[in-house]
C-alpha cells in the first residue's frame, strides 16, 4: 500500500500535553497522527483517501466536540469519531453514540483502551470505504446504460420475462432480448438475481 493509503488518526484537543501524549501512544503501534488545537483547523483539512479516524475532545474552546460531529455529518463527511472527555455524563455519551461515535473515553484512560478504540475505528472506516467504492463502481456502470436499458433493467428486476418486457415496451421479443443482453453485460451481472441485488444497493445509495 502507498503512503496515501496508510491509516491516519486526527486528534483535536486544546491541551497540548494531551495531544502529544496521545500522539506518543499511537506512535507505539506505528500509527500516524495529525494534531489540531482547534476544531476549525481540522474542519478546513481535506480528508485524504485513506483509512482514518478522529479523536475529539468534548470540551473545546469555540466549538464543542458534539457540534463538530454534527457539522461533519451535515457536510457528508464520514469519519469514525472517538470522543474523549474529562468528565462525561450519560446523556452526553448517549447523544454522541447515537450520532455515530465509535467510542466515548473518559480521561484519564489507559493507553490500551485508547489503542483498541482507534483500531476499531479504523476498521470501520475501511469497511465503509470499501462499501462506498463498490457503490461508486455500480453507479458508474449504471450511468453507462441508455434510458431504454435502464427501463429494461427496472423491468427485469421486477421479475418480468423477455416476452412480458416486449409487451410493456411495445417491441418485438427479439429487440427486448437484445436490450436485456446489453444491460446484463454493461452491469456485469451474471444473473437476474445478481442484477436485482445491484439495483437494491443502488437504490440504497440513492436514498442515502
Amino acid at each position, binding site marked *: 500500500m502507498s503512503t496515501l493509503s496508510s491509516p491516519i488518526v486526527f486528534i483535536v484537543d486544546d*491541551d497540548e*500535553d*494531551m495531544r*502529544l*501524549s*496521545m500522539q*506518543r*501512544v499511537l*506512535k*507505539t*503501534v506505528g500509527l500516524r497522527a495529525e494534531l489540531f488545537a482547534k476544531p476549525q483547523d481540522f474542519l478546513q483539512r481535506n480528508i485524504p483517501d485513506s483509512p482514518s479516524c478522529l479523536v475529539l475532545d468534548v*470540551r473545546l474552546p469555540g466549538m464543542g466536540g458534539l457540534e463538530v460531529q454534527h457539522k461533519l455529518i451535515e457536510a457528508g463527511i464520514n469519519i469514525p469519531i472517538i470522543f*474523549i472527555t*474529562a*468528565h462525561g455524563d450519560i446523556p452526553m455519551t448517549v447523544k454522541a453514540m447515537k450520532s455515530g461515535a465509535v467510542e466515548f473515553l473518559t*480521561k*484519564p*484512560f*489507559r*493507553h*490500551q483502551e*485508547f489503542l483498541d478504540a482507534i483500531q476499531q475505528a479504523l476498521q470501520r472506516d475501511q469497511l465503509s470505504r470499501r462499501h462506498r467504492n463498490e457503490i461508486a463502481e455500480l453507479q458508474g456502470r449504471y450511468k453507462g446504460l441508455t434510458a431504454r436499458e435502464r427501463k429494461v433493467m427496472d423491468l427485469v428486476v421486477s421479475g418480468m420475462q423477455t416476452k412480458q418486457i416486449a409487451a410493456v415496451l411495445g417491441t418485438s421479443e427479439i429487440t427486448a432480448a437484445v436490450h436485456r443482453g446489453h444491460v446484463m453485460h454493461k452491469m456485469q451481472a451474471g444473473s437476474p438475481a445478481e442484477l436485482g441485488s445491484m439495483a437494491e444497493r443502488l437504490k440504497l445509495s440513492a436514498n442515502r
Partner: protein
Amino acid sequence: MAKEDVEKTLAELSRDLGESKARLEEAQRVAHVGHWEWDLETDVVVWSDETYRIFGLSPQERPMDLATVRAMVHPDDREPLYRGVDQDLVAGQRPSGEFRIVRPSGEVRTVSSLTSERWSSLPGDTKRDASGRPYKLFGTIQDITDRKRSEEAFQEISRKLQESNAMLEEAQRIANVGYYSWNLIENRVIWSDEVYRIYGLDPRQGAIDLAKVGEMIHPEDRELVFAAAEKALQSGTPADIEHRLVRPNGEVRTIHSVGTVKRDASGRAYEMFGTAQDITERKRSEEALKRSQFYLSEGQRIAHIGSWAFDDSGHYWSDELYKIYGLDPQNGAPTVEQYLALIHPQDRASMAETIKRMQEEHRGFDQIERIIRPDGQVRYIRAVAVPVMEQGLFKGFIGTTMDVTEQELLTQELRREQAYLAEAQSLTHIGSWATNFYTKQMFHLSDETFRLHGFDPRNGPIPLEHFFETIHPEDRAGVTATLEQAIHTRTDYDIREFRVCHPDGTLRFLRTIGHHNPSSEMGYYVGITMDITQRKQAEQEREKLRQLEANLAHINRVNMMGELAAALAHEIKQPIAAAVANAGACLGFLEGERPDIFEAREAASGTIGSARRAAEIIDHVRSLFKKSFPQREPVVVNELIREVALLLHNDSRRNSVTVHLELAENLPEVAGDRVQLEQVLMNLMLNAIEAMRDAGGDLTITSQPTDDGHLVVSVRDTGLGVPANKIDQIFDTFYTTKPQGTGMGLAISRSIVESHGGRLWATSDSGRGATFRFTLPYEGSMGT
C-alpha cells in the same frame, strides 16, 4: 081719587122713584156694584152706570150687546163663563161667577156677577116664554178686584208667617235657642219646643209651672237665676245670665238665658219674654281652645319654638317668637326690612332671596339661618314656612321658627368630627360599619367601607349580599364560615386576610374585625375593615426577595462550589490524563522485541511534566482565595449575622432547626469584605443546619468582644458533632462527609477569615454538637 091727587101722588111717586134710583146709583157706586139686564132673545144688554164704570166706560156711553160684553171678558175666562151660563140656564139654575174683565185701558179687574133670584124664579113672569124658559136675565156685577187682592195678600202673609214660624223653630232647634214667655200676672210659663228640648223634656207634654223650672236649674245656680230675674223686674234692664240645668236624665247643660220685661201702659210688668240657648258645646270648645292655646304657648316656650301667620288679616307672631328674636311684643311684628336687619349679614342675602320667592311664588321654605339679637347674641334659627291654600287659592303663610343654636353647634361639631373620621378612614384605608348579619340590616357604613369593596358611596345604599359577592370566590367560603361561627357563638371575630375583587378587576387584600356586643341582638356586629394590600404586597415582596436572596445565595454557593470543582476537576484531569497516556506510551515503547529507549524516555519525562502541571493547578486554585481581596469596608457583624439568619430562615425551618441569636450589643465595626464574610457565616450556618438535618435541633449564633481587640463569633449546633481525630482534617481542602459536598467550604472559609486577620477553628464533643468560632480584629486594630 082726584086727578090732581093722582098727579100729585104720581109726582110724589116719581120724585120718590127718582130719589130711590139716585140712592141706588149712589149705593152701587159706593159698593162698586152695578146691575145689568140681558135680553136672551135679542142679546141686548142694559147696564147701570156703575156697571159701565166697572167696565172702565163712561155711564150710558153706548148701548150694550152681548157680543161687546163678551169681548170685554178676559180671554182666558170667556169660554168657561158663557159655557157655565148656558149650562146653568139649561139646568134652570141662576148663573153666577167670578171672572176677569179687561177695561179699554188694558187694566184687568176681577168681577163677581150674580143673577137675581126673583127675576128668574117668579112664576107667571112675563119675562118667561111659553115653555117657562126665561128670555131675560137680571143681575148684579161687583168689582171685587181690591177685595181679591187683599185676600191674596192676607193669604200670602199668613203663609209667610207660617213659614217663618217654621224657620224660626228650625233655627231655634239648630242654634239650640228657644224662647219663653212668662206671664207674670198668672205666673204661667209658655215655652217654645226648643226650650223643652233644651231642658230634656218632650215638647208635647204641655205647660210647665215655674216651680218645676226652678227645680231643674242646677242647685248651685238657682239663687243666681232668680236674683237676676228679680233684678230685671226691678230695674227694667234685660236679664242676661249663664247658668246650668240638670236634665231629668241627670245630664248637666249650660244655658245662656236672656229676658226682657214687658209692661203695660201703667208701667206694670205683665210678662217676661226671652230666649234660652244651650251653650254647653260652645262652652266646652271654648274651654278646650283656651286649654290648647295655653298648651301651645307653654309648648312653644319650653321648646323655643315660635309660630307665626301672615295673611290678608295681618301678621301674627307668637310670644315665644318675639322672645327668640329678642324683640318686644309691644312693638308688634317687624316689617320685612326690620326682619332682614336682624339676620346675620352673611345670611341676609339668601334670606332676602327666600322672602322674595315666598312673596312672589308663594313658595314655602325650611332653612337654618343666623340672627343677631338686639343684645348682640348670635343664634341659629330654623325657620319653616308653609303656604296656606284654600280651594286652590293662596291665602297666606304659616310657619314656625325654632332656636336651634345648640343643635346647630353640635351638628357642626359632629360634621367636623365626621369629616375628620372620613378623612382618617380614607387615609388609612380603614372603613367602619355596624351591621346585623343575621337580619342583613346595615346601620352604619362609612364611605371608606364602600370604597374598600370597590363601590362608590355616592351611588347610594347597597345590599349586604353585594358586599359578600365582592369576596374572592376562593375566600368566600372561609369568610362566611368564620362569620357564621362568630354569630352562632356570639363572639368577636378577626378575619386577618381575605381578598376582594373590585368591579374594575383589581384585587385587594382586606382584614376585617367584628365586635359583638353581648347585650345586642344576635348577629349585630360593629367593626372595621382595613385594606392590607400594601402591607401584604410588601410582605410578599419581602418574602419573595428574601426567598430569592436565599436561593441566590444558595445557588451561588452551590454553583461556586460546583463550578469550582468542575473547573478544578477538568483542569487537573487534563494533565493527569496526559500523564497516564505518557506513562502508557512509555510502557509501549519499552515493550516488544526492540524497545525504543529514546521514545520511552521522552514519554517518561512527558509524564513528569504532566504531573507537575497538575500540582501547579492545585496551587493556583488555593492562591485564588488567598489573593482575592477586592473590598474593605466597615462591616457591622451583628447585622450580617441577622441577615444570614434571615436568609437561611427557610432552610432552618425545613430542617426543624431553631435559630437563636445571642449578640452582644454595641460591638465595634470590623473592616472587611462584606460578601466574603457573609459567605463564611452562611457556610458555617448551613453546615450546622445540615448537621442537624434529620433530627432537628438548636442553632445558636453568638457574638462577643474579646480582650485583645477582636470580636469572636460562634456558630453552635446540636448535631452529631465531629470526632476528635477529625477535628483538624475538616479544614483540609476537599475534606467532606457529605454526599454532595465539595470539601471546599471550610477550607475557603478559613482562607477568608485568615485573610481578614482572624482565625477560624472548631471544637466538638462527639455526639453533643460542634461549635465553630472565628475571630475578626476591630477596624481600628486591623493588622496588615
